């Protein structure tokens, strides 16, 4: 069916409404990549199997990510008349029991995490049936979240354009095409205060303005989905969980600047995201929401998905464009900026996935609404992937201006297994490590930059007392070294040399002069490199030097690794009193350095031990000790 008029869209929306709240149970499983990694596939199969066996008529949906990845596999159950309940940490066996209960008309207590209130309705019956169950937004993990970009994530079937429409999808496009001029759209985006969510934080409206005014006949839209920061998965999740939101945003952008072709450049490691966005493009085209004469107007817009091939630097806009053009992903000096001269030298509007996903919400609810979220100069919400040594890992969307404390202790629930949180790394290889005593800082562009890090695209990796900050700095330099395109001297040669110095430090072979040299090179790479990759690559080193100088000094002067990580500077022993002789470490030691009889204390042969800490990690009795 082609959607040509507002009433066509209304029909689509009604269909979606029926799919979201059918007259039979609807069971949806979080099947984004994170869910799959936790075993959601097996849970899904078990649910289907059990339902088939019991001939239970239900809708089984594979949904996107609902955010609290820590609790995955997650199953969201909607029983007609009962409302929605979220079940956590499901297993295939649990799935079987769940279906049995549903078949007998009951909602089980087992694994129930929270109920999901439905818009405009009171406390659902499920809350009465399952006494003690709280609404999802009462969980500490969700309490301070505000979902704009992730508004549909995990709540709808990402393949279904009907369900997207039922949640208000395509209303903005309708509004934009039928009632707003391109100029008015750009004005609304400008007034909303939206800033690019890809890392730079450039005012989005201003970029659109520049692009729409640039001279040239053809124009292009690009969605940057090359999410390269290690330890971050916001953009993947948006594409996997709510692809239509990105498409709608890009289409509005195309109309605003006068482009008829858009590209989504997706990171190679994200096969599921590529499938989902491709499917959504197909469906939108079938429905006449992409292609020619969109919504009965004369506006034409198509989107093509391009698969990246494993190069972090292609996230940089000029490198991404070079890669699209078929060359190697090598950045070029700016200006000219892509908004003026981009793909094939034509004006090109490039924005991040999350920026695009925010657009439709802003057009629909108005720029004032958006500007009212967050703080001054930092309007709206941003998505973070809260991972690492933190109790609750997951995908979090917050209004800007929340403090790091609220994020890590509140939402994240503090350290892992009671360990003390030492720092948080934001902004990936371009960012820095912020120490715990600065956690009172608000999460906004200026504060994080001032603290020597950056807001970045949303990676937030928590580190605890068992993380060595020198090792972390070295880790990032190695990343830069492997991912630098190699075009310019500072990034290519400087990163390699900084890595060499950091290696000397963790091996206990560095001198105090090396630290001086390290800082000198870091400053040069930062200021003399050609593109953002090199210009920000020293941040992990500079920020750790700034806040964790004592750890560097311990390595250099005392030949000691306080966190007990650097292999050359530690020893491992087994505490005979705690060891129960279970033999796990003996089996798992990669070099066979552990000896001992069953049920008797084991010992580590210091001559064979490579200090890899495998035994330390796996010992169920915590009997392995690190001598630092």
């Amino acid at each position, binding site marked *: 069916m082609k959607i040509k008029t507002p009433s066509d869209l209304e029909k689509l929306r009604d269909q979606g409404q029926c799919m979201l709240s059918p007259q039979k149970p609807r069971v949806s499983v979080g099947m984004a990549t994170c869910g799959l990694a936790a075993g959601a596939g097996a849970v899904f199969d078990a649910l289907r199997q059990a339902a088939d066996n019991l001939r239970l008529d239900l809708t089984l949906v594979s949904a996107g990510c609902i955010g609290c990845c820590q609790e995955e596999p997650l199953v969201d159950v909607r029983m007609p008349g009962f409302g929605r309940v979220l079940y956590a940490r499901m297993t295939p066996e649990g799935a079987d029991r769940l279906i049995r209960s549903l078949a007998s008309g009951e909602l089980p207590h087992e694994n129930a995490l929270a109920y999901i209130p439905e818009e405009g309705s009171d406390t659902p019956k499920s809350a009465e049936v399952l006494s003690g169950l709280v609404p999802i937004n009462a969980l500490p993990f969700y309490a301070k979240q505000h979902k704009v970009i992730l508004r549909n994530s995990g709540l709808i079937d990402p393949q279904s354009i009907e369900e997207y429409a039922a949640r208000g999808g395509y209303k903005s496009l309708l509004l934009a095409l039928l009632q707003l001029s391109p100029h008015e759209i750009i004005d609304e985006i400008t007034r909303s205060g939206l800033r690019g969510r890809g890392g730079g934080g450039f005012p989005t409206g201003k970029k659109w303005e520049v692009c729409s005014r640039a001279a040239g006949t053809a124009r292009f839209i690009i969605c940057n989905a090359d999410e390269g920061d290690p330890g971050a998965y916001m953009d993947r999740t948006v594409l996997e969980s709510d692809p239509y939101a990105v498409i709608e945003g890009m289409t509005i952008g195309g109309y605003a600047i006068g482009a008829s072709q858009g590209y989504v450049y997706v990171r190679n490691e994200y096969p599921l995201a590529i499938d989902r966005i491709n499917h959504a493009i197909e469906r939108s085209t079938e429905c006449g929401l992409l292609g020619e004469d969109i919504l009965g107007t004369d506006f034409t817009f198509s989107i093509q998905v391009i698969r990246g091939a494993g190069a972090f630097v292609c996230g940089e806009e000029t490198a991404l464009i070079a890669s699209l053009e078929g060359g190697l992903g090598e950045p070029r000096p700016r200006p000219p900026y892509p908004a003026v001269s981009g793909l094939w030298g034509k004006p090109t509007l490039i924005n991040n996935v999350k920026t695009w996903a925010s657009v439709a919400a802003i057009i629909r609810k108005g720029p004032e609404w958006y500007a009212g979220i967050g703080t001054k100069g930092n309007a709206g919400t941003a998505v973070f992937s809260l991972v690492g040594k933190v109790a609750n890992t997951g995908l979090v969307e917050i209004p800007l201006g929340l403090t790091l404390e609220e994020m890590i202790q509140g939402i994240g629930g503090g350290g892992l297994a009671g360990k003390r949180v030492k720092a948080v790394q934001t902004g990936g290889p371009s960012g820095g490590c912020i120490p715990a005593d600065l956690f009172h800082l608000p999460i906004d562009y200026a504060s994080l930059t001032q603290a020597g890090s950056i807001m970045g695209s949303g990676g937030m990796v928590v580190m605890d007392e068992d993380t060595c900050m020198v090792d972390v700095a070295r880790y990032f330099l190695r990343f830069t070294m492997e991912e630098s395109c190699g075009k310019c001297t500072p990034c290519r040669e400087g990163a390699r*040399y900084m890595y060499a110095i950091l290696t000397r430090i963790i091996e206990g072979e560095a001198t105090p002069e090396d630290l001086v040299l390290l800082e000198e090179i870091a400053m040069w790479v930062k200021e*003399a490199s050609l593109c953002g990759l090199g210009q920000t690559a020293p941040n992990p080193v500079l920020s750790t030097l700034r806040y964790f100088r004592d750890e560097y000094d311990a390595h250099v002067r005392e030949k000691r690794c306080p966190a007990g990580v650097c292999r050359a500077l530690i020893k491992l022993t087994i505490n005979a009193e705690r060891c129960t002789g279970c033999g796990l470490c003996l089996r798992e030691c990669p070099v066979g350095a552990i000896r001992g009889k069953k049920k008797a204390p084991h010992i580590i042969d210091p001559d064979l031990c490579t200090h890899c800490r495998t035994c330390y990690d796996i010992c169920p009795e915590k009997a392995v000790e690190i001598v630092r």
Partner: protein
Amino acid sequence: MITLTINRRPVSVPQGTLLLKAVEEAGITLPSLCHHDALAPYGACRLCMVMITAPYRALVASCTYPVEEGLVVETDAPEAVQARRLALEFLMSRCPRSDVIRKMAEKEGVTASRFGMPSTEQTDELCVLCGLCVRVCRELIGAAAIGFTGRGSERRVGAPFDFQSDACIGCGACAEVCPTGAIQMEDRGNQRILRAWNTRITLSACPECGRFFTPEPTRFLKKMLPEIETYWEVCPDCRRQKTSRQWLNAQ
């Protein structure tokens, strides 16, 4: 014309001039390896760094920075000098045998590099990855016979699959443009050898003098300039002689 300030003195240059050229205009030479007037700005070696203090303060590569009215430039700012020196130090450690780099470094006051690389196999390296050879072959000749391979510290220049480039026409522009002499072109009998590209070109004998030459570049020139009557089929030396003789006779 655009007026800017370089080292506290006003300089006027036409609009669109690159800062590197404006600085030269002011009588100051900056080290530079990857810039060539006939090629698009590239900005890879980062030797030509200067400090601008207005409209904002930043270190910039002068070879990619177009001049603008009111720009204030200091080539002698300590940060700029330091940036150029470090780049030279690193290039020296990359190519310890290169006289070109050593001399360039000496001019900037660098006599030795602190960054000797531990690996010894790199000591014969002469290539600084300025990319001039690749770009001249692609942008000016249009043969695109060579390119970059790998990335990061593994980046190199070479022929596809590091083996006999079929697209190479043996014009020698790469060897000519290479600032450090990393590309040697050698004619041996009827063979032209470009060792850096693992490539051999078979030469033709000149019907006039019998010396070997490569007819390919001439063929392209002929296609480009069909209106010019000249002795296309003989070697460049004989062509020069014949043309000048013709000219003298006409006089």
